């Protein structure tokens, strides 16, 4: 995630993805700035919860070669909103999911569910579409109000005994 913090102050070029079509949902996207091409990819790992194996998704960040963009341009999967604007800040949305069975804690999971890139005219938000599937969703936000950010769907099923709670907070990445 530090890679993203290093982009603060640089000029944003575009958002792209090998399978990032008009509905802006895909497992992998690229953020291109004047300094680097950063890959954000949702990956799933299995995690034991009681007798069940749950798929838990997380966002991986890596710097990649500019050549990965060739297919994106060829297929038209390039989005230029905020192009040329300075990245003012990068923040992470952190979700802490806790579960309790008959009021006894039995599950806890914390992850970064979204990356928010701030521009003078708004935010580019790259978030997990689902806590249990390798999918990222792109939205554009006027502000970074925690109450109005898109919720991440999940398969944590509640019943009379089992309850889940999601606590969300925003943390700014250091430059």
């Amino acid at each position: 995630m530090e890679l993203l913090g290093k982009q603060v102050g640089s000029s944003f070029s575009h958002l792209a993805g090998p399978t990032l079509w008009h509905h802006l949902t895909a497992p992998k996207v690229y953020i291109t700035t004047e300094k680097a091409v950063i890959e954000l990819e949702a990956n799933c790992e299995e995690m034991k919860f009681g007798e069940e194996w749950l798929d838990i998704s997380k966002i991986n960040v890596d710097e990649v070669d500019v050549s990965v963009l060739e297919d994106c341009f060829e297929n038209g999967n390039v989005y230029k909103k905020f192009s040329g604007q300075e990245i003012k800040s990068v923040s992470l949305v952190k979700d802490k999911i806790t579960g309790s069975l008959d009021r006894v804690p039995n599950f806890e999971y914390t992850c970064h569910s979204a990356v928010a890139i701030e521009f003078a005219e708004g935010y580019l938000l790259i978030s997990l579409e689902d806590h249990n599937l390798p999918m990222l969703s792109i939205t554009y936000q006027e502000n970074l109000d925690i109450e109005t950010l898109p919720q991440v769907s999940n398969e944590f099923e509640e019943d009379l005994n089992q309850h889940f709670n999601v606590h969300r907070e925003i943390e700014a990445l250091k430059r």
Partner: protein
Amino acid sequence: MGSGTGGGFSGGASLAANVAKLAGKYEFNKLSGKFGVSGEGKSRVIVSDNPTATAQSFFKDLSAGGKVSEVSKGKIAIFSDKSTVFFRETSSSGGPAVNIKLTGIKGQRYKIRFEPTGWTKGKDK
């Protein structure tokens, strides 16, 4: 930007329509509206002589018209309504698995594990 050629969504394709089409090809419970039989926990099970080949074929059939991407350890197909099919060749049970997520009013999500002929509930790995 954002438009182009190269294999996008097929017009009118949906995961719900694919599910309806395949209900006769793979074991399907009309009451629950889900493929497979009840397995351990909340997962469903489809039994066949060749679980890997069946799972691959199942994913190929279900993903028709969706946008397919390679992901770590598998493939995911995303439809324009964000309904999703996620396939892995190996899962915690050892065999292949497919997750189905249908969005909309009749939305549902579940995992199907593919087991070899002879599998019986309660004898999971």
